[in-house]
């Protein structure tokens, strides 16, 4: 067994990033992600990279834009309100077809909210909270180990798709400590002939998202959409846990998936065949995997620490073929396994209907 070291999720983000070739970090403090910039300020100089605390989230994402244009693997991190501030910048990065990595350690919202764990930025993350037809590719770690590996991989993905890649976690995943085995990691860096590094021995390069002629901009959009299509084919990832024989499939990511992992065993302890489908990529979403389960008649219970956001992606995947229920807690409340077990039991008992919604908030149409 390789050596296991104890690490906080936020620290694993930093170490994974550096392993993934990140050499420039620009951030601004905000709880519950402060360990990321703090740890970066210690480790990045040792890795020969740049750490800079920006004057704001706007400045941070713009510095990322500049460093990405200059061809360096770069990232920023923040938590919900700070991520909202970066939306214009993220849209620019997507529009200029630049790679970068962004970590969002979600907290309770809306507004100032609180610093507890929430998953209410799912729409913002997967639908693009900024303007225009872009998306961020979204990875959702559920363990400290995945904080490390998915962050490292995020840089490869961002470079491959020339698009921002978001690592979406929450206060629990960011703040918890687990033992991990540090993997060997070799970044895959594609050539970047488009960088603005000084026009030495080549024509001048321009990094830009302005296309004043609509058909030119449409062409860019088509190129970007084609990349998303490619990602849907090649990047989508989900973990299935005991779904094979399951009657009720829980769908959850990140912290709520951890809770649901306990629920699966507890429910089975009570004789209910429960399983868990855990999307690892939230965009692209594992539509096909869920559709396949729906085809086999499985019923779904979507669990989120939100009032119902990912449930829309599940419903879009299921498209009426099977029942989709939702259970959510908001405002930083982490649901206890027992509450969810109750939901699973109720569902196992009830005859299959169409989409229903339980107790706490609601699906949204």
């Amino acid at each position, binding site marked *: 067994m390789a050596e296991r070291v104890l690490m906080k999720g936020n620290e694993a983000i930093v170490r994974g990033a550096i392993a993934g070739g990140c*050499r420039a970090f620009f951030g601004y403090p905000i709880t519950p992600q402060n360990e990321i910039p703090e740890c970066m300020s210690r480790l990045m100089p040792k890795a020969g990279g740049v750490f800079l605390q920006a004057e704001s989230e706007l400045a941070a994402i*713009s*510095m990322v834009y500049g460093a990405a*244009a200059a061809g360096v693997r770069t990232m920023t991190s923040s938590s919900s309100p700070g991520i909202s501030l970066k939306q*214009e*910048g993220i849209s620019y990065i997507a529009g200029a077809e630049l790679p970068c990595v962004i970590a969002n350690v979600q907290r309770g919202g809306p507004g100032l909210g609180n610093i507890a764990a929430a998953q209410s930025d799912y729409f913002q993350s997967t639908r693009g909270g900024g303007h225009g037809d872009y998306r961020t590719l979204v990875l959702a770690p559920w363990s400290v180990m995945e904080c490390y590996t998915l962050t490292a991989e995020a840089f490869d993905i961002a470079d491959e798709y020339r698009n921002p890649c978001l690592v979406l976690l929450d206060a629990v995943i960011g703040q918890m400590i687990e033992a991990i085995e540090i993997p060997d990691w070799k970044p895959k860096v594609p050539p970047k002939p488009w960088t603005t590094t000084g026009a030495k021995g080549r024509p001048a*390069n321009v990094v830009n998202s302005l296309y004043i002629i609509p058909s030119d901009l449409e062409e860019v959009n088509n190129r970007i959409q084609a990349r998303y299509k490619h990602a849907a084919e090649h990047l989508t990832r989900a973990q299935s846990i005991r779904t094979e024989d399951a009657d009720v499939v829980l769908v959850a990511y990140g912290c709520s998936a951890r809770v649901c992992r306990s629920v699966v065993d507890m429910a089975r302890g009570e004789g209910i065949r429960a399983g868990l489908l855990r999307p690892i990529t939230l965009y692209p979403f594992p539509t096909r995997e869920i559709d396949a389960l729906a085809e086999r008649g499985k019923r779904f219970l979507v669990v989120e620490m939100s009032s119902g956001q990912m449930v829309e992606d599940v419903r879009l995947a299921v498209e009426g073929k099977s029942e989709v229920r939702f259970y959510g807690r908001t405002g930083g409340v982490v649901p206890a396994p027992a509450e969810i077990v109750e939901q699973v039991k109720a569902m196992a008992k009830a005859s299959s209907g169409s989409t229903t919604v339980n107790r706490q908030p609601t699906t949204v149409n």
Partner: protein
Amino acid sequence: MQKVYERPESMADVQMSYCPGCLHGTVHRMIAEVIDELGVREQVVGVCPVGCAVFMYEYMSCDMIEAAHGRAPAVATGVKRVLPDSVVFTYQGDGDLAAIGTAEIIHAAARGERITTIFINNTTYGMTGGQMAPTTLLGQKSTTCPTGREAMREGFPIRVCELLATLDGPIYLARVAPVNAAGLVKTKNAIKKAFQKQLEGRGFSLVEVLCNCPTQLKVSPIDSLKWVEENMVPYYPLGEFVDR
């Protein structure tokens, strides 16, 4: 006879989209000349603003980045920090730099970023149609202060050089006005000095160029230069504010 003046190498041979008589083009050319004279074209990364100069990346023959409105100094910081040997400049209007981008320019200056900013103060939002800028003079009309700027309603114009001069990060701050023959020479010299300061690697440099916007002022190009001289220069005194 030999050619003593032609298009600088760092400028692309294309038509610019500025209004007739707008000094944006004049200042572009000076920047290109300075880059040529310092022999740094292949190290330059320029950052364009959002404003009339938004297409500057088409007019220069060096690497250029289009920044979001007001964020050019942060973008430039990102570039310069990862490429310390590059020569990085931003080109920004008064709306871009002194309104939405206030925090970014102040902090780039306070950090003493080794970048150069060319700041075009034309007292208006040229590109969007002549709205009030932070530098619009008291009494001056605009499409969003149609009765003229009033201090107790729209506030006072901001003097950027004086503001930045209170910081320890800038090593060169100058205000110039290329509205007459002498002003042309001084402007070019100030721009050159600002770039040279960057090459020294000790801090931040900025040149504020008082410019015309004949279109929004609704006067002829020549009258717009007179307007700059008669109305702007008294409120925005020319000179070097920091040189260290």
